[in-house]
């Protein structure tokens, strides 16, 4: 298949990122990221703060000009009018007007996308209903609760009914109840067939909402696949043992290192092929003078994958 044929075949893909590089001074925020997105898919970008997730999102939106590489949205270059119209961006910040009401905010952003008349009226009604803000539609935004502001922030990004939605950590700073409400909103959006990119540094969110997950670190995608595939690739059928001991932290860390383990949340963590290996570990700890408090066996999660791939915890 020629390159022209390939380009034609993929030109209608919601998103194509090819070898994206972006540097800010000495810092490489994106170091050659490539990515494809399928229609109706929800892709999670998982990584710690400063990994390059937001730079990637802003490059897709057209707010960051890459040093090299290409970003196309439904075949149109990022930043072009066609790409802008197809994209809905929910930034990490509360990018709404505090002195306007919820409805006025939606009207403003709708008009920025060229909506007017009945389509705008209908879009506002849909957004208010989707964000469960109908009863607060005429309240000033600054008087809304943090969770409500977050939901309005999301609704403002969807006012023009985009085909591709980019959500940049939409649950930052919200309480668990509001977070659940936001999850429900995103799931409702998914049911309607929306294509979504969702960035987060909370693995539970990525596991719950996303079809595929791209783990981003130091401006690169270090793993990409489904939740299960990522764990399988990193751990196979192995499990994790977490053991908590009473005693000096230095002694526990030294012993864990001697058994190829590491310290995770004050517990010694080990990857084992079979549960029978636990007895040997505990004998070794007792020999080292460590007093066991509790021990647990668990299947590795995305955090384990990140730790396995980078040697650091996701929330470092």
């Amino acid at each position, binding site marked *: 298949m020629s390159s022209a044929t390939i380009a034609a075949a993929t030109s209608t893909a919601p998103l194509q990122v090819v070898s994206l590089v972006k540097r800010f001074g000495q810092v490489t925020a994106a170091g050659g990221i490539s990515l494809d997105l399928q229609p109706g898919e929800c892709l999670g970008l998982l990584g710690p703060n400063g990994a390059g997730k937001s730079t990637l999102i802003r490059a897709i939106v057209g707010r960051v000009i890459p040093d090299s590489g290409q970003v196309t949205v439904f075949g149109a270059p990022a930043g072009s009018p066609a790409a*802008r*119209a197809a994209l809905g961006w929910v930034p990490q*910040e*509360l990018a709404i007007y505090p002195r306007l009401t919820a409805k006025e905010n939606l009207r403003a*952003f709708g008009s920025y996308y060229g909506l007017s008349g009945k389509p705008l009226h209908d879009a506002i009604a849909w957004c208010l209903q989707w964000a469960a803000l109908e009863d607060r539609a005429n309240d000033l935004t600054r008087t809304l609760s943090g969770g409500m502001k977050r939901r309005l922030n999301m609704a403002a990004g969807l006012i023009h009914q985009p085909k591709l939605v980019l959500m940049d950590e939409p649950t930052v700073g919200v309480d668990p109840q509001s977070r659940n409400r936001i999850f429900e909103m995103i799931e409702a959006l998914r049911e309607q067939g929306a294509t979504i990119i969702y960035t987060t540094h909370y693995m539970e969110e990525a596991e719950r909402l996303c079809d595929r997950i791209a783990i981003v670190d130091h401006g690169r995608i270090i793993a990409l696949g489904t939740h299960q595939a990522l764990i399988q690739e990193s751990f196979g059928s192995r499990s994790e043992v977490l053991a908590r001991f009473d005693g000096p932290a230095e002694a526990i860390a030294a012993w864990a290192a001697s058994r190829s383990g590491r310290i995770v949340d004050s517990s010694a963590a080990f990857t084992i092929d079979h549960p029978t290996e636990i007895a040997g570990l505990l004998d070794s700890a007792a020999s080292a003078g460590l007093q066991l408090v509790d021990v647990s066996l668990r299947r590795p999660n995305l955090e384990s994958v990140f730790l396995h791939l980078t040697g650091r915890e996701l929330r470092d």
Partner: protein
Amino acid sequence: MTFLPIARTALVALRRDRASLALSFVLPIAFFSIFAAIFGNRHDTVPKVSVILVDEDQSTASHQLVKALQHEGSLSVSMRPTSDKGAAPSANYTAASAEAAVKAGDVSVALVIPRGWGDHPVAFGPDQGQAAPAIQLLYDASDVIAPQVVGGMLQKTAMTAMPVTMAEQGMKYTGKYIGGLTPQQQALMQSNLDQLRKIQAQPESAATASTASGSADFGGIIAVQNRSVIGENKNNNMISFYAAAIGVMFLLFTASGSSGALLDEAESGTLDRVLSSRITITGLLAGKLFFNTLLAFTQLVVMFLWGWAVFKLDFFSHIPGFIVMGLSTAVAVAAFGMLLASLCHTRAQLGALSTLVILMMSSIGGSMFPRYYMSESMQKAGLFTINAWAIDGFTKVFWRDLPISALWPQVSVLLAIAIVLFLFARRVARRWEYA
């Protein structure tokens, strides 16, 4: 000592915003320098009062007076309009053209020495002002100082520059009111007058005489008829001036404050989001410019309506001129605000910079006191401000009752300022466009 941590935190925060810190020191120094330059007479000579002089009399006495006034250090006397380089010299002013020049605001005062004045140059006694026509002092009532200065200088100059005339006239009035001198006294007086004529005929004598300081109060020895040629029917001569002057100054503050919303939006991320929609940075700035122009124009309307309601400013007779000047001023002011906001990175910087620039422009440009009180160099410096052009335009409309066509210099300059400032703001705003 619980207050110390608070003070330390405030100091650290201030040090972080170095632009604000610098401006907080620059601001008072800048103002001190401006006021010192305007009032302290540090860089310039005492401002001269410009006056047009028309000699219809062409008598010996009038020639002496004209010569003496031309040598008077505090006056800048014009006998004819300035002509373009290379062009033939203009004809001398006439009474009519001098009056027109005062009405147009070219000068604040004109003196017209009427035909026949030289026959009885000194006004004295019960028939003062009736024996011969009085010198006409035509003035613009908006300038309350210049007519008084010129009137005083005229009397002083007459006393010091025309000693022979004074003596002759004195003898005439002596004969008229106390019966005259004896033949011996007349002979002696005539001999002294001849001597005085010889001295006066010598070169520079007039200059020497004119610069002699007269300490006595000789008010009214020459008959002068003061006549306001502009503003005589106005309800309050300074209301329109201050409506424009103060209005423009606060328009500038409002425009910079309103444009500061750009900085808030940039900080909150709203600007980024807006620019990810169909709106471009040019469209965004143009939208803000349009809004700020309307806001400024509305402020002017409210201010002039207040002037009309409370101070009887004749607003409704000048609506077309007001609209033309109001919109021109508003768009220039709005563009100015956009540029300041684009140049600054924080609200604190904008607050400090706008205060500095606006108060400087307002003091030099005539918003705080009329520019004709300033030295010539400061008046020229004022032409680099929005205030000066706006105030001049509104003065033409409300004070001089000039037609809209006469506003073209002010309107052209204000629109040019608006375009240049907006383009500059657009260029500076590139930092918001992309990362």
